[in-house]
């Protein structure tokens, strides 16, 4: 205990350690790759997500296309309902990143990474980009099935790609939500539970009919729900043509649904790493 009396300043190294580190983009690429390797080795985790969104598309199309098409003026109900399918796939798919993180927290690898000089941004964006990749596959599959079902797009193939882009943007941005829950709880159950956030977002909106046909509280909810504007943008692309006002509103909605969860997830990581 005698050494305790030595002044602390004496021990600070005079020459600072040369800080070698990987460029950020490389760290992100490596973490994304790492997560994709894990996904490839656990294929069972991917199948349900793929199945369910195609299933929804079939059900909506089959059960509603005959009944409620008076507002479509001869356009296809498939093109009207497809964005719902894409968006619900994006929102539920946005939970993937959180699940990848929770898996690492549970097996302890997350701490191992925290002990390296890895950038916190790379630590979070690796799983998010891996999730985005899976989401792209899933969305492309839905669009492929829709095209086989006879989808016609008012803006051609470019419009279909634009819808894919919207799905990706939304799903990747909203991933921050699942990531935050994963970091704050460290619990797989809570994280997969959080992915049910897609329910209110997908259904408290103009899901099955255009917004002007909604009434009362549902209409109010839909007007406040950013998803309404994403739906409006993607529907207009498929049914009418390039409506830049709608597309602009859709992009703003995606930005809101992306930026807020992202900020929360950075805060959540801080909570996790500092209050443990």
């Amino acid at each position, binding site marked *: 205990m005698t*050494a305790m009396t030595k002044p602390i300043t004496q021990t600070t190294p005079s020459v600072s350690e040369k800080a070698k580190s990987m460029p950020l983009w490389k760290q992100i690429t*490596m973490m994304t790759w790492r997560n994709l*390797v894990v996904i490839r080795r656990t294929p069972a985790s991917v199948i349900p997500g793929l199945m369910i969104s195609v299933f929804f598309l079939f059900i909506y199309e089959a059960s509603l296309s005959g009944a409620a098409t008076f507002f479509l003026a001869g356009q296809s109900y498939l093109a009207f309902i497809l964005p719902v399918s894409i968006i619900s796939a994006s929102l539920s798919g946005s939970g993937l990143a959180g699940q990848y993180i929770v898996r690492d927290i549970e097996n302890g*690898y997350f701490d191992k990474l925290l*002990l390296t000089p890895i950038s916190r941004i790379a630590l979070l964006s690796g799983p998010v980009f891996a999730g985005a990749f899976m989401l792209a596959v899933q969305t492309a599959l839905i669009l492929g099935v829709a095209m086989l079902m006879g989808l016609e797009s008012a803006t051609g193939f470019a419009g279909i790609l634009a819808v894919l882009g919207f799905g990706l943007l939304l799903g990747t941005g909203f991933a921050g939500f699942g990531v935050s829950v994963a970091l704050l709880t460290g619990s797989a159950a809570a994280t997969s539970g959080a992915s049910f956030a897609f329910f209110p977002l997908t259904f408290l909106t103009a899901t099955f009919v255009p917004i002007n046909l909604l009434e009362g509280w549902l209409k109010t909810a839909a007007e406040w729900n950013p998803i309404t504007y994403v739906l409006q943008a993607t529907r207009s692309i498929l049914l009418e043509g390039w409506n830049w006002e709608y597309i602009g509103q859709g992009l703003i909605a995606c930005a809101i649904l992306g930026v807020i969860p992202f900020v929360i997830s950075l805060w959540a990581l801080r909570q996790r790493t500092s209050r443990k």
Partner: protein
Amino acid sequence: MSSRQIIVENLKKRYEGDFYAVNDVSFLVNAGEIFGFLGPNGAGKSTTVTMLTTLALPTSGKAHVGGYDIVHQAQQVRRIAGVALQDIGLDPVMKSMELLVTQGQLFGMSRMDAIKRAKELLELVRLSEFTDRPVGKYSGGMRRRLDLAMALVHKPEILFLDEPTTGLDPASRRDVWAEVRRLNVQEGMTIFLTTQYLEEADELADRIAIINAGKIAVEGQPAELKAALGAESINVTFGDNPTVEKARDALQSMVDRAQIDRKTLRLYLQNAAYAIPNVVNKLNELQLQPLSLTLTQPTLDDVFLQVTGQRFEEETEDEAPVEAVA
């Protein structure tokens, strides 16, 4: 080169409910020494390690690892410290090369260098033949060895090993001991090792600190601590507790110190062997019949008993509070 020292001053960690897992802990680890941090389950060992390795922030107090502040210079601490936590953090579906190369690259090595280093380390921990197998299929001992290799990738100057031999069979345990000594002697690493095995601390550590219920009970060289107990002890075991107490009352004045440990009376004194006849005579005189009588050199176990008033193993089994940090 960092200072390779660890200086800890009044470190505290409070969890919810006003529970102090680490309560005002101070100690010094010199450059190049093996420091044994000894304590039963839940004593605060792992919590101390998570703070020193930057995984958790202290509630109050200061600590420098290699001269770097663990709170404000966490990034520098991570560069010079190698850490093998008690819970081995390896993704079970990944393979040893992937894990080691990723680790190397994150510490700034080129991919080629990282691969070279990974092969070197796999050789060192004798896992070169198992690179095709996902680590989830490894045995406990293999995982432990790979985890040690992970901690060594960036050639740390200070190595933290949190219970490195818990759950290992005796042969693997001796392997780890040999490796720890080699790293210390050949690579000059300062090694901070927590353990709940007295034998391990005795075997490996240049100096030890015993932590109990979040506080440091004693700190020093094992030999010095044992010597401070008064060299040797005569241990007399009786059939029941009242007899032990009677014997203590009768013999206390003849020895330096007498202590009851369950049904055994421990009598500490210099040149204990010469005192045996007197002890036996006294017991005969009082007609106290011992079950056994032994003479022992003091062990760290005795040190622990002396400083905490409890038996080390007993504490471990019976009233180990839940370790607050995994």
